[in-house]
């Protein structure tokens, strides 16, 4: 069990995160918040790259900073800006990563081949990474994070810069990796986590806003989301969510605290609605 106890992170006078209490056990946890909400700060603290100003992060009751290498050997980390050696092949890079993860040589060689196959880079395993696309680099990133078969997999904005096809592939990969481990995934792209996250964590105003299953989080908006093709007829205060074209009509999706009667149809809220509703005051 990985837990955060009243974790606060400050940079001088600026508070990035305040009094965060969280608990992680097996499954996929999606950290969902707009850019600049503190997701990366939280992720970096979990990866021991930065340290809490106050509070503590515990692994089975022990402080992760004090655990030092014995905690880090349990984690796999893919940062938002994944750096790599441009003149190395994936295999060479993974060999080096296996060395810094203190894997035995024979064990590492086998694991590297498995992971290269798993992330679909078999055909380019001997090519220099400088010619790789963003998606291929991210796949190398996930492979390095998985090298030590981590109990805690930490992924910071893993789908940023990927095309839709690669994002679907990535989602499936994360889903398959989430068995028997904690996967903590930070993103501001709702569709990345809608189908794979067991738990959604929302950060707002530097604090924990909500943590629950996607269904439970969506349920907080139940009865407040509507669709209409005549938004100009809606007289109650409302928040525009999305628009789409359907049979030549513009269907508008909106949220309102008030009953809209027959002028709009109540629909089931999804995570995107919750995201737009919760962060309605944030700059988009």
């Amino acid at each position, binding site marked *: 069990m990985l837990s955060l106890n009243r974790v606060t992170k400050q940079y001088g006078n600026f508070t990035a995160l305040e009094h965060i209490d969280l608990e992680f056990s097996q499954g996929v946890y999606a950290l969902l918040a707009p850019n600049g909400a503190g997701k990366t700060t939280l992720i*970096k603290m979990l990866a021991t790259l930065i340290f809490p100003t106050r509070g503590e992060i515990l692994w089975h009751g022990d402080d992760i900073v004090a655990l030092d290498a014995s905690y880090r*050997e349990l984690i796999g980390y893919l940062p938002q800006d994944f750096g790599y*050696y441009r003149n190395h092949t994936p295999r060479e890079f993974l*060999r080096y*990563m296996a060395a*810094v993860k*203190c894997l035995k040589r024979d064990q590492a060689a086998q694991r590297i081949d498995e992971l290269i196959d798993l992330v679909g880079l078999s055909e380019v395993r001997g090519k220099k990474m400088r010619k790789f696309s963003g998606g291929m680099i991210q796949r190398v*990133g996930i492979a390095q994070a998985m090298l030590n078969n981590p109990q805690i997999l930490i992924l910071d904005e893993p789908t940023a810069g990927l095309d839709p096809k690669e994002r679907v592939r990535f989602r499936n990969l994360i889903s398959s990796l989430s068995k028997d481990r904690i996967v903590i995934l930070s993103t501001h792209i709702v569709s990345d986590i809608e189908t794979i996250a067991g738990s959604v964590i929302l950060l707002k105003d530097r604090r924990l806003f909500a943590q629950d299953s996607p269904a439970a989080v969506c349920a907080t908006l139940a009865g407040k989301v509507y669709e209409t093709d005549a938004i100009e007829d809606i007289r109650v205060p409302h928040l525009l969510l999305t628009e789409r074209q359907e049979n030549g009509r513009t269907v508008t999706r909106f949220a309102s605290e008030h009953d809209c009667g027959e002028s709009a149809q109540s629909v089931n809220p999804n995570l995107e609605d919750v995201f737009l509703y919760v962060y309605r005051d944030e700059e988009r």
Partner: protein
Amino acid sequence: MIFFYELKKLVLSPLILSLAALCVLVNLTFLLVERDGLEPMGQTARPADAVAARTVPIFEGYRTADIAESYIRWYRLDGTNAQRIRNKYDKLQPVVDRKAAVGEKPPVYFSGRMSDFQVLLFGKLLKFISQEIGLLALLAALLAAAYEQMRGTEPVIYASKTGRRVQLPKLYASLTVSALLSVFVIGASLLIFFALFNFSVPWQADVSSVFDHALGETKPFITWHDLTVAEYLWATIGIGIGLALGCCLLGFAAGTGLRSAYGAFGAAVFVLAAFDLIARAPFLPVGSIFKSAWGLNPMWLWRNSGTWFTDGRADMLWANFETLGLCAYSAAFAAAAWGAYHLLRRREIH
């Protein structure tokens, strides 16, 4: 195993390899230019005859106090600074007496041209080489220390089991590469030197006998310890490599302690430049302890490499100043490297 990966990164670095090759090329060019300036060997073809003809016992009755007084007059010293100079040369007198007792005599092997070769090999070439390998070692260490930061791989490596301790194998690799580069540059340059010049000195003879004079001066070449020419060459190379390893520690300290590779390079260069500028400053009078202590720094040692193992002129108050300086600054740079490493272990990586 990480050590070998780090070693490979440095050994295969195009920057380091091309700089090392450039150093050898510069030395080759320098030696070719110098060769053209030297007169033909001529009478050195029969050194044995020359020995028999021109042996002069220069140490017999030689007074080191005269050296002290000439420096005191030259620098217009008085008081305690003058007294310190006298004390140093008083301590050198037994060395001269010992050399006189064993019949040390001035060289005749090159009939006056020994001085040219001495200046060329020890006063110029080895001085350049020691500076070059120092710079190479500094760059190798900077590259090793800042390698992950420059490539954005710090987060994944520092979040691994090895974590920030990866800097230690990097340090060992940069020290190893510095030593290897030093051996390469020294070996190649000396090979060129011996190929271009007929430096057929009696290697087992005492260096004070073989060399005409102290570099650029009229006094004899007096070393604190008895050294043969071969021993003197090896000792000079040893100090040169030692200084290079010291620079490697300085580069590692800067590269690990600062978050910018360019900033780290600038800081290391600034430290070395400050050593040199302060050593030249007029507020450090000759004969003062501070002047002598400041002169132990690598920059001063490089600039005065031709005086290593000798009295060190008036600037130095202590015997074996080159060894003292090497040890003192290696210890200081090692402490800085250790401090930077421990700072990194507590530092946040944004």
